[in-house]
C-alpha cells in the first residue's frame, strides 16, 4: 500500500454511534498517524442556563446533561451545594443515593459492553448485554418511576423513598444479575478472538494517563488507582466493603475487564446498602443558600464528575462549572489511537466509553465526497478483521 497520507473522517453522524462527534484520522497506509477530534455538536450551554434557574431547578437541568450519567451529575451538584452549606444528608438518604448511583453504574457498563461487542463485530454480545440491562431499568422504573432521568437527588437528601416491599425486588434482581455477569466475564477472559482484537490495542500508558488527567475506568485500566468513592468518600462509601479495581496495561482488553469486574463490586455495594437501610428521615430541610462556594465530586460510571458552584446569597447560582469525565478521557484518544491500524480505531475510540453529551454539556464530512472510507466501512473493516481472526483460530 502506498505511504500517501489520507484523512478518514468519522462522523459526526456515524452508523450506530448514538452521539455526534467528529474524528479526523490521518493515516499512512493502514496506520493511524494522528487524530483530530472535533466536538460541540451537543453543546447546549448548560453552564450559562444554570445561572438563570433557581437552586432546585438546577438539579433537573444538570440531570439532562447526560442520559446515562443522569444520577452522577445531580449527585455531584447536590454534594457541591451541601459542601457550601456544610450539611450532611441523613444516613437513609445516603444509602438510597448509593443504591441509585451503583445501579446506574451497572446499567452504564452493560450498555458500553454491548456497544464494544458491536464494534468488534460480536453482535451477540451486544444483544446479550442489553438484554441483561433491561431488569436494571425495570428496577429503576419501580423505585423512581422512570427508566432514565430518575430525579431522585435533592439538596439535603433524596426526593423519593424506597418502599420496604421493594427491598426484596432489588435483591432478587441483583441476585439474578450475577450469572449474567459470570457469562460476560467468562466470554471476555476465555475468548481467543476477543483477546486478539483487544490485547495490546489502543494502549494508554500510565505516564500519558497522568498527563491527560484521565479518570474512572480509563485511568484504572492504566494502573492509576483513583476513585472518588475511595479518595473522598461521599455518601457513606467508607462504611461499605468494596474494592477499587485496577489493571496495569491500559489496553482495550484491560478497559473491558475493569468494567466487567466493577459491576460485581457495584452489586456487592447495592446488597450491603439494602441491608443497612433503616427507617428514618430522607432529607434535611434547606431554606437558604448563603454566599460562598462549594465543590462536589462524584464517581460517575466514566469517572470523576466535578461540579463547582458559587452563590451570592440569591436564589440562583452565580457560576456553575461542570466537568464531566469524558472531557478528559476523550482527549486521551489523541494518544491511544496513534500507531495502530485503522481497523482497530473504532474499538479504541469507543474504549474510553465516550460520552459527548457530558463533555459538551452544555457536548465529518458526512459520507465524504472524496471517497476514501466512510464510517460504515470502518465498522465493517473492524468486523471483517474479527471474522478473519476467527477463521484463523479454528
Amino acid at each position, binding site marked *: 500500500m502506498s505511504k500517501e497520507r489520507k484523512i478518514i473522517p468519522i462522523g459526526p*453522524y456515524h452508523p450506530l454511534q*448514538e*452521539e455526534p462527534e467528529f474524528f479526523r484520522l490521518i493515516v499512512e497506509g493502514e496506520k493511524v498517524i494522528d487524530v483530530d477530534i472535533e466536538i460541540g*455538536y*451537543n453543546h447546549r450551554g448548560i453552564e*450559562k442556563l444554570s445561572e438563570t434557574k433557581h437552586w432546585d431547578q438546577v438539579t433537573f437541568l444538570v440531570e439532562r446533561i447526560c442520559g446515562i450519567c443522569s444520577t452522577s451529575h445531580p449527585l455531584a451538584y447536590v454534594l457541591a451545594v451541601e459542601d457550601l452549606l456544610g450539611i450532611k444528608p441523613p444516613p437513609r438518604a445516603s444509602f438510597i443515593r448509593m443504591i441509585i448511583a451503583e445501579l446506574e453504574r451497572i446499567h452504564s457498563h452493560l450498555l458500553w459492553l454491548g456497544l464494544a461487542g458491536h464494534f468488534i463485530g460480536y453482535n451477540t454480545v451486544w444483544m446479550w448485554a*442489553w438484554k441483561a440491562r433491561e431488569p436494571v431499568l425495570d428496577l429503576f422504573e419501580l423505585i423512581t418511576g422512570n427508566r432514565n432521568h430518575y430525579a431522585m437527588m435533592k439538596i439535603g437528601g433524596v426526593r423519593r423513598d424506597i418502599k420496604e416491599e421493594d427491598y426484596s425486588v432489588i435483591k432478587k434482581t441483583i441476585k439474578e444479575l450475577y450469572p449474567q455477569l459470570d457469562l460476560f466475564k467468562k466470554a471476555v477472559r476465555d475468548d481467543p478472538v476477543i483477546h486478539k482484537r483487544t490485547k495490546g490495542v489502543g494502549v494508554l500508558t500510565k505516564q500519558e494517563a497522568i498527563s491527560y488527567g484521565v479518570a474512572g475506568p480509563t485511568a484504572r485500566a492504566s494502573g492509576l488507582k483513583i476513585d472518588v468513592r475511595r479518595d473522598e468518600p461521599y455518601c457513606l462509601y467508607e462504611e461499605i466493603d468494596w474494592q477499587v479495581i485496577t489493571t496495569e496495561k491500559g489496553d482495550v482488553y484491560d478497559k473491558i475487564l475493569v468494567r466487567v469486574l466493577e459491576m460485581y463490586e457495584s452489586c456487592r455495594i447495592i446488597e450491603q446498602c439494602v441491608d443497612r437501610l433503616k427507617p428514618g428521615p430522607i432529607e434535611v430541610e434547606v431554606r437558604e443558600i448563603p454566599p460562598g462556594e462549594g465543590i462536589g465530586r462524584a464517581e460517575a460510571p466514566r469517572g470523576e464528575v466535578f461540579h463547582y458552584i458559587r452563590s451570592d446569597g440569591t436564589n440562583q447560582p452565580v457560576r456553575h462549572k461542570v466537568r464531566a469525565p469524558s472531557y478528559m478521557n476523550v482527549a486521551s484518544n489523541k494518544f491511544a489511537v496513534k500507531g495502530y491500524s485503522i481497523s482497530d480505531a473504532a474499538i479504541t475510540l469507543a474504549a474510553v466509553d465516550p460520552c459527548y*453529551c457530558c463533555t459538551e454539556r452544555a457536548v465529518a464530512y*458526512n459520507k465524504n465526497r472524496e471517497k476514501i472510507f466512510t464510517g*460504515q466501512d470502518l465498522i465493517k473493516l473492524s468486523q471483517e478483521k474479527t471474522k478473519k481472526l476467527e477463521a484463523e483460530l479454528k
Partner: protein
Amino acid sequence: MGLKEKILTKSLWVFHISAGSCNNCDIEILDLLTPRYDVERFGIQLIGSIRHADVLLITGAMNKKSLKRLKKLYTQAPKPCFVVAVGSCTCSQQMFKPSYSMQAPLDEIIPVDLYIPGCPPKPEAIISGIVKLIKKVNR
C-alpha cells in the same frame, strides 16, 4: 397519501440523527433493536447510511452546530421520507430554548410528520408512535 409512501410502510429503514440531545432518547432508540423490544421482527431496521433511509428519527434540542449538519443530511435523504421527532427536546426544545447555543425548533427547519414527546419516551411509546404513522399513511 400517495402510493410511494404506502410502499414505504412495508419495511421501514430508519436512520437516527442526534442533534444536541442528552443521549437518553438515543439509547432508548437503540434499545428498540435489542431482545426485549426487537422491532426488527416488523421489518424496521436501523441503517448506517442516510441514502437508504425511509424514516429519520431525530433527537435533541438542535444546537447551531448540529443544525447545519442536519440540513445537509435532510437534503441527502431520498424523498419521500418521514421525519420523526423523538423526545420533548426535539418537539419544543424545552428548557434549552433560551440558551445561546440554540437556534430554532426542528419543525421550523424541516417538516415533521410525527412527534413523540417524553423525557425520554419509553420504547413502547416510540413503537406506538411509529405504528400510528404507518396507520395514517395506509388509511
